[in-house]
């Protein structure tokens, strides 16, 4: 899928650098022992600014799904209709990421199925972003 290339900032550079090395890292708050994504300057729960980046397993489960027929993003319009699924990370199921689930036909996204992270190169800048596929596929 020809996604837009995300432009990293100081805050999220470690996340995108890790993507380019095929590693998934997520912000972690020590005092709360809690992950959060998207990246923020501080922990959304306790305000702790001393967050660290932790590598996670890259395993998760499909929480829900939609099929997009009318996307606002021009580069994706020719791909319509396409899946978008929410992925709950195994380490912390409240942390949600999105996926196009490459290879899964529309209307056939299995809620609850196990998935694993892959990294997809976005065309404009070559920046990699996390994507997900059915585990073992």
């Amino acid at each position, binding site marked *: 899928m020809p996604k837009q290339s995300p432009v990293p900032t100081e805050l999220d550079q470690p996340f995108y650098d890790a993507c380019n090395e095929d590693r998934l890292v997520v912000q972690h708050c020590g005092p709360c022992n809690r992950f959060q994504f998207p990246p923020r300057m501080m922990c959304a729960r306790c305000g702790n600014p001393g967050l660290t980046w932790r590598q996670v397993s890259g395993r998760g489960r499909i929480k829900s799904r939609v099929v997009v*027929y*009318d996307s606002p993003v021009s580069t994706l319009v*020719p791909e*319509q209709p396409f899946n978008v699924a929410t992925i709950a990370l195994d380490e912390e199921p409240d942390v949600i990421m999105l996926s196009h689930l490459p290879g899964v036909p529309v209307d056939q996204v299995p809620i609850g199925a196990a998935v694993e992270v892959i990294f997809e190169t976005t065309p404009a800048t070559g920046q990699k972003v996390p994507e997900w596929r059915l585990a073992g596929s």
Partner: protein
Amino acid sequence: MAFLISFDIDGTLEFGDPPGGITVEMVRRAQELGFLIGSCSDRFPSAQKALWEARDIRVDFVAAKHMLPDIRSRFEAVKYLHIGDRELDQQLAEKAGFEFLWDHEGVAEPWLEWLESHGG
């Protein structure tokens, strides 16, 4: 064998919101010349029907925009045309095997030439 024209409403027809360049007169003329006509729009079907009735036009079909394939299978025609004002109109039309014209291209009524090239 007939020709079929599907009009989008908003942004395409003069009674759309926003109004488009295709007039009721153009639609009426096409129908009088034997074209199968109707609308495929994001207005819901019963509202489309009411809009045409208010202009005293008995259309051959009304349908939601994404039902163009259904219209194609219901009517036999030499050519199928959809006229609209959004990229989405173009995408849905081409997927359904319709030719596509932008609203502003339709204003010149290019379909009238079909009659000549197909011997009226």
